């Protein structure tokens, strides 16, 4: 390990103006011959071809630039980005940052897909409909459940769609007024609370006991005739697998509730555990995480929603069906929760995930999980043995982890005054993206949640740990060096607590002006 070298990195800083500010009136990227006369002779007056309501009253305010300026602008911006493809993105745990094979980009950028029109007749779109249908069969196998919708446009919407199905199910049974409560756990994703709350449910959240997951006794204490279901992640964000999940589900089922599994943290379970065997009535997977489609900052994601046969009729519309000869889009479904997304949802994510699964096969998927678990446990061993000031909650009763670990820098902080946030800012000095601390609430103090997926080599993990060791050493010898980081980023340390208070948060110029009318 001693030969692992840290990079002499410095982040790019181009001080680039907005492209609109670079506009030079009259500048053009392409000069095309004016053929309006010849074209007009064929088409007749253009004004007659377009309904008045579709015509712009003013020209669009587009920047005017030549090609090299445009290219330079976007290349510079790309250099200022620390994305998944350019850094060792181990730090962003719970997000399952993995390599997205570039050949899959060819598929989604093929005109066969990009030229498809949302209102195209099914008879001329049999290929894409077949992919959706076939991938549903694959996801049925992976989940063990009976029907799948790719309509949700992300993990959160996947959970929301499951909450909507749950609500509809109890409405149909005449139990909606009685079953008003959802149970979840404090270490499940916050949306497992928020999405049911959006559907009008009350939410009861359980704390872990010394095993790292809630006790059965606690669950039994909160389950009642009001229970509509449990929304649970397994493994939770800690990477601790709840081994008594079947007992959990049984308790809820016996009370008449349903089990909704959040399979967003699925990367360590491919080929090993299915939602059905966990006892789930519903679950969702994030195609933009475990299934390699990129995250791309709030999209293009897909939360694949999987349900049991009993709940299939409630799935969002449309669905893609096959009558033995022909694939077709089915908008019909009186019991359905309805439409939650335009047309077929985010199909690019479906195509990438389909290609990824097909390239790996059944055994390949299992290798993904096993490699992710191996990587994580290798990293865990080195983190706990070699990085001073790092600890792991529930280590005594739960010494093993699946695909990720929620570590704590509490000891480092108490010993040196260097917080997890300070470590995070210093990490960017070594060419890594900032790490993910924890979902809220932060019940693990000074948290850090890395996830070394199967995409990373031993050398990658070693480089990451070497950086953390150096930062820890600095914290103990010269804490102010870490506290004042970063040094190799274009922006130095900022106090940015305002992003934690929505009343002060301004992510656009317009919202900033709203808060500061005099600006």
């Amino acid at each position, binding site marked *: 390990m001693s030969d692992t070298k840290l990079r002499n990195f410095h982040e790019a800083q181009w001080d680039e103006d907005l492209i609109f500010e670079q506009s030079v009136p009259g500048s053009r990227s392409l000069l095309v011959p004016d053929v309006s006369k010849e074209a007009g002779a064929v088409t007749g007056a253009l004004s007659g071809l377009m309904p008045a309501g579709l015509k712009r009253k003013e020209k669009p305010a587009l920047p005017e630039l030549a090609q090299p300026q445009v290219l330079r602008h976007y290349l510079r911006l790309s250099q200022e980005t620390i994305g998944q493809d350019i850094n060792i993105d181990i730090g962003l745990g719970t997000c399952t940052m993995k390599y997205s094979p570039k050949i899959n980009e060819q598929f989604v950028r093929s005109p066969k897909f990009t030229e498809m029109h949302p209102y195209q007749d099914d008879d001329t779109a049999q290929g894409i409909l077949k992919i959706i249908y076939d991938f549903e069969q694959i996801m049925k196998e992976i989940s063990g459940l009976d029907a799948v919708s790719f309509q949700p446009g992300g993990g959160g919407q996947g959970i929301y769609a499951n909450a909507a199905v749950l609500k509809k199910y109890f409405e149909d049974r005449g139990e909606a007024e009685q079953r008003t409560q959802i149970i979840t756990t404090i270490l499940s994703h916050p949306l497992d609370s928020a999405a049911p709350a959006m559907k009008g449910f009350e939410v009861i959240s359980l704390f872990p006991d010394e095993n790292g997951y809630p006790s059965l006794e606690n669950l039994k204490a*909160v389950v009642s005739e009001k229970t509509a279901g449990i929304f649970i992640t397994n493994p939770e964000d800690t990477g601790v697998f709840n081994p008594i999940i079947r007992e959990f589900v049984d308790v809820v089922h016996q009370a008449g509730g349903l089990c909704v599994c959040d399979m967003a943290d699925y990367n360590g379970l491919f080929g090993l555990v299915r939602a059905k065997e966990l006892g789930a009535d519903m679950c969702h997977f994030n195609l933009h995480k475990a299934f390699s489609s990129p995250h791309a900052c709030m999209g293009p994601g897909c939360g694949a929603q999987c349900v049991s046969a009993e709940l299939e009729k409630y799935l969002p519309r449309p669905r893609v069906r096959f009558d033995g000869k022909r694939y077709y889009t089915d908008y019909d479904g009186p019991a359905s929760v309805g439409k939650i997304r335009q047309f077929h949802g985010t199909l690019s994510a479906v195509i990438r995930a389909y290609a990824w699964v097909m390239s790996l096969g059944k055994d390949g998927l299992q290798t993904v999980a096993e490699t992710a678990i191996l990587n994580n446990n290798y990293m865990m061993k080195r983190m706990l043995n070699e990085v001073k000031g790092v600890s792991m909650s529930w280590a005594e009763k739960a010494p093993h982890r699946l695909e990720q670990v929620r570590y704590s820098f509490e000891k480092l902080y108490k010993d040196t*005054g260097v917080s997890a*946030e300070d470590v995070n800012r210093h990490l960017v000095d070594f060419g890594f993206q900032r790490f993910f601390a924890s979902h*809220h609430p932060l019940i693990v103090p000074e948290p850090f949640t890395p996830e070394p997926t199967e995409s990373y080599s031993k050398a990658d993990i070693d480089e990451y740990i070497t950086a953390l060791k150096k930062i820890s050493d600095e914290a103990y010898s010269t804490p102010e060096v870490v506290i004042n980081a970063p040094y190799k980023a274009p922006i130095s340390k900022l106090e940015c607590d305002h992003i934690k208070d929505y009343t002060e948060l301004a992510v656009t110029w317009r919202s900033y002006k709203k808060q500061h009318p005099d600006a």
Partner: protein
Amino acid sequence: MRKLGLIVNPIAGMGGKVALKGTDGADVLAAARARGAHPESGHKAARALRALVPLRAELEVLTASGGMGQTLCEQMDLPHRVVYHAAGEDTGPGDTEGAARAMVAAGAELILFAGGDGTARNLCQAVGETVPVLGIPAGVKIQSAVFALDPETAGQIAAALVRAGDFTCSPREVVDLDEDAYRTGRVSATLYGMMRVPNCPQQLQSMKQSGFTREADQMAGIAGYLEEHLEPGVTYAVGSGSTAKCILQRLGLPYELLGVDILRDGALLAKDVTEEQLWSYAREGDMKIIVSPIGGQGFIFGRGNHQFSARVLRAVGKENIAVIAPESKILSIAGYQLHADCGDPEVNESLRGYYNVLCGYGYFLSLCCK
């Protein structure tokens, strides 16, 4: 230049190691000294102040003479100004109060104090919620929710605040045990008021954080939910502290912050009732209790609300107790466990088990009372 108040209660903690349960009062101090007690709080304050040493260029410590802070600042070479001079060798509650007032007058942005519940109580008496405070735990009794977990953490929090500039605060409880009663084996605590404690930037408040919602929003959600779920004909006994009183604030009713108030059908029946009065309501039946745990330590009964006596709690029953708290307060409680101590083992036993603690609109955290 940041102005930081520092008050060391030089005698705090002296009674602890010689089994005197506390050091309130001159006679107890004398007894502690006779038993061989040595000053404790100075060492603990020094452990906290270590984190401030690297920041001496940005800092002016406003402190009190001699053992109340001056000596320590000199030893640690911290830039300081003595804004209060104690009259004699043995300092008392009056000195804590005088020093605190002088620091507020001199523009202290945060008062760091080393002591225990008694010191916190004196400070609360002097400054209330006018200035942010943070306790360095150095006394025998540490029940109030205004102390950091340990001296080092107090120092780190203060250092982070000096670096950070702005910070927000939440009101937290100041409780103190009656030492005379405690020495005879009885636990009797009174809620003396609230002080403002920093919600530290960079996840420093107990180094835990509840999320992107503000405590005020969570409180509004709690109050809104309670209001919608008030049942006609039920007598609500609303416990002490600003969290529990949110329902009375919501209804625009007057209340006694440190006492128990009685609410029924949207009207305030009685303010600041005694145990005897509360019992007379409880005997009528159909009573529900609304309480909030004390931050940091999690007591729902037996600390600062003795009106909820064993007989009252027995009559009302666990199923009629609504526990409410914003998430940030829950995260401040060690082990996320509630405690109840009404003096009767049998009733205490009946209060054990899980409570769905209301933390926001329709949002509950399940906490165990042990």
